């Protein structure tokens, strides 16, 4: 408990590492007939290898645009996103995305959905190895027995597990999650959060996740990036989450520090940067 209560003691030793994923003065402007519409304005952020970072903010704050530029779906107007010093220009399997609405192909089984990516990304590997990669990752998310089921036969939580398995099967450097658990019921959401943490620990993967849920962000991440409201959204504050890992939800909830951080985040979102609608 003492460790949990003293953030200074647990602040990660990132200072010694080279940043892995860098947002360098990133801006996104959409030209409109009535003038330029600035979505994101000067985002600077350095994420370390193996770090778990959550981005929170109100809808319309450009979180998804930010994520799209990391994934490579959109190009920044100014600045750039660099992964291991390489500027990101196009989508690629080194930055796998788990979308909110599952995005599994409904006419393919869970196995085929994962296999499609494995086949495309590892064309040189033998059929047996590709098959093993798919099955290993289905097992990782505990879904080996529904490998031959189509998405329509799976629950929301199962679909999202398949998506995570598909993403990780391609050995990405960064796992990008766009409100992955937003559509799930609270119990499934908590289960998947814990599974995600286990997978993150086992794979030593860098995770960038967008969420609406402050509790989720605090439970999962090393740092919470809080965005100001759009247009021209910026990074408002970056909150360090000092809880020791592996984390236990029940223990974290007992920690006064948790409520301190939670209130700080709530204050940021609902007072200092309250949405016009709220």
């Amino acid at each position, binding site marked *: 408990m003492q460790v949990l209560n003293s953030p200074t003691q647990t602040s990660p030793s990132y200072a010694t590492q080279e940043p892995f994923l860098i947002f360098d003065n990133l801006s996104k402007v959409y030209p409109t007939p009535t003038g330029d519409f600035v979505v994101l304005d000067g985002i600077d952020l350095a994420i370390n290898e193996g770090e778990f970072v959550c981005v929170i903010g109100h809808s319309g704050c450009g979180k998804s645009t930010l994520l799209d530029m990391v994934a490579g779906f959109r190009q920044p107007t100014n600045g750039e996103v660099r992964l291991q010093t390489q500027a990101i220009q196009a989508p690629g399997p080194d930055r796998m*995305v788990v979308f909110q*609405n599952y*995005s599994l192909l409904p006419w393919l089984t869970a196995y085929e959905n994962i296999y499609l990516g494995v086949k*495309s990304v590892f064309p040189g590997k033998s059929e047996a190895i590709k098959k093993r990669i798919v099955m290993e990752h289905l097992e990782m998310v505990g879904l080996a027995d529904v490998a031959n089921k*189509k998405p329509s036969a799976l629950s929301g939580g199962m679909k999202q597990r398949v998506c995570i398995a598909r993403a990780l099967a391609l050995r990405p450097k960064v796992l990008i999650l766009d409100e992955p658990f937003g559509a799930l019921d609270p119990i499934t959401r908590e289960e998947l959060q814990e599974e995600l943490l286990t997978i993150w620990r086992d794979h030593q993967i860098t995770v960038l996740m967008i969420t609406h849920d402050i509790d989720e962000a605090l439970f999962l991440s090393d740092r919470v990036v809080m965005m100001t409201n759009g247009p021209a959204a910026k990074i408002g504050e970056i909150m360090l989450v000092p809880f020791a890992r592996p984390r236990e939800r029940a223990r974290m909830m007992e920690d006064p520090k948790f409520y301190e951080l939670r209130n700080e985040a709530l204050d940021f979102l609902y007072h200092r940067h309250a949405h016009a609608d709220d």
Partner: protein
Amino acid sequence: MTAPLDIRPARSRFNLQKFANSSLDALKGLVPPAVAILIFLVIWQVLTMGPDANLPTPVRTVQETWELIINPFFNYGGTDKGLFWQVWTSLQRVALGFTLAAVVGIALGILVGTSSLMYSALDPLFQILRTVPPLAWLPISLAAFQQANPSAIFVIFITAIWPIIINTTEGVRQIPQDYNNVARVLQLSKSEYFFKILFPATVPYIFTGLRIGIGLSWLAIVAAEMLIGGVGIGFFIWDAWNSSRISDIIIAILYVGIVGLLLDRLIVFIGGLVLPEEQKQ
């Protein structure tokens, strides 16, 4: 409306027809259309019963066309053939023209749907041409082909192709952005994208186009055959009009309607076989 009055008949019926319930339900479904047809026939009979009616009564229609009804397979040479052969000839033309329209239409639709340049270039043209009535194409195709049969087939082709193109294009353009994003992240090859994403996602739209197309084909063939002559249900109707065999026309119209319905059902049936399970509504 007391309770015993309500319950008793229901219970007794249930006990009597415990095993016949499902077939009874099916029969019940047939009652409204049967009643509607009966009312239609009665109105027809009443309207045409007068001494100076221009059209035959239903009873007279059946009497006069009894030969045609009981023997659809006769063949006395020339255009003097039973209704089966007339319809069969028309169907062959439709099959050829429609198949061509399906192949070309789907290919063009995918091309136009995947390329925004092609879309902006060709969509206005399609939108104009699709409104041209089928028969307006007949003179120009006669001029081009110089023969009746290819002209009729071309009219079918050109009539059926627009809804197929337009629906296929729409299907391609409606592919959910998520699927395209998945394809981009996974860096799928062109053929993989085509067979695993584009085609399965577009199939329901293609079948909508095919269904509209087959309906239009059947509309067009009857009209085109009236003008080109020879064997075929369209010319049969025209020929009957010229020989004042009004009853024959009525029977032929019934045939045309039933065959049109069957063609529509056929496309729906094939669609049911081809459509990915998850794409069915």
